[in-house]
């Protein structure tokens, strides 16, 4: 190791590609022709740009803010809301003016200003970030493990709600980790992941209600069913790449949902399946009376016990997903997934059966989706096809991509931000003071969700945590910059 010049390693940029990119960017900044002389002052320019933006916003929102159609007597009524429209035009004007006048510099693209400094990802910083990442991971794990008790001591009045929210977030973390195997590691863009979630939920629900089986018996079966479906749906799409794969998996997800709706005598049709049993702890249920958890341990009954129990089940399942994924990454199969993401043709040239590699990725991801689905079913006690729409797939995919493909910690962050953050909105009653008492913040959840997806992606196209850490090390672990890591097929 001593033969290496240590400074050379330190001075090394994140990659030849990046260097190229930088060169290109500098070149872009220097056109071969003399730049046009700036004729207008900053104020003039800012005003002009602000006016333009305001005009665009006016055009865009005219039919949505100024006019609103509503069903009235004898047809549609038109409600005019000019003030609302003008307010938004004014907001657009002001925002753009501020941006143009104070932030924007001519000749520089806005996205360049938004993007963070590239030198920040030097190898040293990356190594530091990795340790930070590990520390954050441990802290989060500790918090997760003690969360119900923290809540009980700190915020007992909100315990039910908060634990329920934590369960929801953890469900998405688990789904995100499951999908991360398919999208993040194997680089197969799957927009129909919710299909496996649905298969898991329905297989559990149907097994439990028809054959009177308990949660713990059904859970592995549901996972296996989902994995089987992963293979069944994975097989035909093996040859597809990139966007095509995405759209076919989306179609499969929708097909499964339509079948669930219409196959009434088995799946209960649009009404779904009711009366799904709750999980038990070694045969102890969480109800009142004889043979229940509280009875057995001689503690007073509290409905919160069930929530805490459910919380630990999903935490356990999520951690299992994480553990298995991390473990698989270091095994040949996981390395083959990543190699597939990097270059499928090279994989074939090395004797890897890419069909198997893809199918195992699909099946493994689907299995965890199936587990999560079972949990969802037992938690709700009721499922219907409505819970398994495309939007769910989109949310899970968004979590994986926003977190940073392949990053386990990133999925956690993204879930907390997207699911938790959106949920918080429900409680921003302060907004009612601004917009009037009939303002319902929950209405805006998905609206803001969509905007956040766009915003975060534009801000960080590689996601929150984008570096990759190698799965096998010869001597020294070095973090690999995101610019070197491929995203999968058809790039």
């Amino acid at each position: 190791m001593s033969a290496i010049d240590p400074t050379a390693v330190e001075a090394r940029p994140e990659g030849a590609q990046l260097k190229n990119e930088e060169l290109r960017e500098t070149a872009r900044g220097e056109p071969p022709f003399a730049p046009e002389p700036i004729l207008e002052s900053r104020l003039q320019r800012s005003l002009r740009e602000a006016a333009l933006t305001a005009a665009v916003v006016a055009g865009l929102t005219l039919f949505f803010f100024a006019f609103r159609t509503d069903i009235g007597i004898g047809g549609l009524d038109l409600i005019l809301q000019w003030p609302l429209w003008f307010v938004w035009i004014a907001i657009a004007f002001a925002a753009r003016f501020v941006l143009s006048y104070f932030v924007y510099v001519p000749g520089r693209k806005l996205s360049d200003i938004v993007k963070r400094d590239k030198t920040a990802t030097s190898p040293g910083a990356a190594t530091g970030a990795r340790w930070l990442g590990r520390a954050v991971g441990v802290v989060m794990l500790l918090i997760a493990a003690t969360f119900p008790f923290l809540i009980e001591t700190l915020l007992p009045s909100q315990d039910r709600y908060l634990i329920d929210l934590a369960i929801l977030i953890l469900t998405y973390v688990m789904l995100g980790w499951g999908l991360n195997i398919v999208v993040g590691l194997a680089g197969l863009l799957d927009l129909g992941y919710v299909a496996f979630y649905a298969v898991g939920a329905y297989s559990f629900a149907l097994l439990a209600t028809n054959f009177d089986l308990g949660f713990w018996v059904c859970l592995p079966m549901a996972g296996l069913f989902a994995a089987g479906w992963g293979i069944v749906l994975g097989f035909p799409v093996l040859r597809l790449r990139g966007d095509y794969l995405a759209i076919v998996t989306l179609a499969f997800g929708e097909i499964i949902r339509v079948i669930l709706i219409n196959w009434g005598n088995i799946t209960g049709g649009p009404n779904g399946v009711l009366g799904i049993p709750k999980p038990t702890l070694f045969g102890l249920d969480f109800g009142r009376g004889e043979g229940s958890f509280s009875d057995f341990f001689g503690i007073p009954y509290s409905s919160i016990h069930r929530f805490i129990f459910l919380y630990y089940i999903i935490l356990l399942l999520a951690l299992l997903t994480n553990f298995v994924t991390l473990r698989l990454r270091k095994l040949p199969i996981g390395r083959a997934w990543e190699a597939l993401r990097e270059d499928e043709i090279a994989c074939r040239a090395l004797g890897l059966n890419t069909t198997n590699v893809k199918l195992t990725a699909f099946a493994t991801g689907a299995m965890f989706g199936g587990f999560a689905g079972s949990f969802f079913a037992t938690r709700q006690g009721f499922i219907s096809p409505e819970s398994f729409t495309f939007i769910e797939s989109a949310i899970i995919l968004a979590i994986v991509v926003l977190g940073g493909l392949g990053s386990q910690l990133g999925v956690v962050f993204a879930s907390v931000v997207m699911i938790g953050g959106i949920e918080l909105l429900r409680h921003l009653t302060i907004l009612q003071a601004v917009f009037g008492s009939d303002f319902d913040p929950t209405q805006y959840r998905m609206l803001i969700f969509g905007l956040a997806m766009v915003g975060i992606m534009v801000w960080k196209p590689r996601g929150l945590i984008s570096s990759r850490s190698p799965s096998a090390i010869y001597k020294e672990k070095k973090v690999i910059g995101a610019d070197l890591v491929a995203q999968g097929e058809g790039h």
Partner: protein
Amino acid sequence: MSQTPSNLAAGPAASAAALDRWHDDPVLSVEHLTMRFGGLTAIDDLSFSVGRGDITALIGPNGAGKTTVFNCVTGFYKPTEGRIALRRGRGIADETIRDLTASGAQHGRDANGEVFLLERMSDFRITATAGVARTFQNIRLFGGMTAFENLLVAQHNVLMRASGYTIGGLLGLPGYRRAREAARERAIYWLERTRLIERADDPAADLPYGAQRRLEIARAMCTGPALLCLDEPAAGLNPRESAELNDLLKYIRAEHDVSVLLIEHDMGVVMEISDHIIVLDYGKKISDGTAEQVRTDPRVIAAYLGVDDEEVDQVEEDLDHEEDEAAARSATGGAR
């Protein structure tokens, strides 16, 4: 079966026939290979053999169909016609291959070894079972993975079996642990051989160009091949790196039981290390023999210098009727 249809071999090469391993002990025999893409015939009835333990070079002007031959041999293309037989073992009877062809199977064996009919096999199986490894003209490394990881991926099949198809690996069984250590050893061996050990933990995309070329060869070697196919390994290398590459290939041939088939434009590399050179032009073989034979072949000179068609005809006539050695030799200097 191993008779190579070459008008040239009948002439001056006849005396050297005893030395021609590609006649006596071929590892790969390509017969009547034809590849058409729509109306375009990229390879036209091409036959050649690669001698066991030889370094064989496939040369020819751009667009001659060299890479297409590679893609047929390694299964990335399914040839329109022809047979590509890989013989693992010396002296496999021609009947064995004939029977195998008739039987429709991919793979057969006789007392002397195994035969694989590559044109019937899928690409990954050619590497995994027949033992043909390849590199690519435009390097195809797993850029986001380290050099070390790249070499481990190449040992996937061995490791996969050892890990009991993941189950044993998940449980951490000792069999897998041993296999993993062996894979590490092998990777480290090849990293050392290719002078990449210092950069073992660097992402492959970060390596300099020459190092990437070497890593690709190391990765191909990690699959444990019998035949190593290199697509322009010296492209983009500086003279020092080219010389190193020569040494590496000679080392591979000497120390490992591997035959090398390479496509190359760098005549310095080709002439120095090749035991056997096959020259393609417009999908046809125009010359086949040792470096010396090919160098003096007027057809090769004509193809490389791009003389007029009449001149080619003229040259061919010359060759057929009178051996105008002097003229050919004086032109050789120009060709190089």
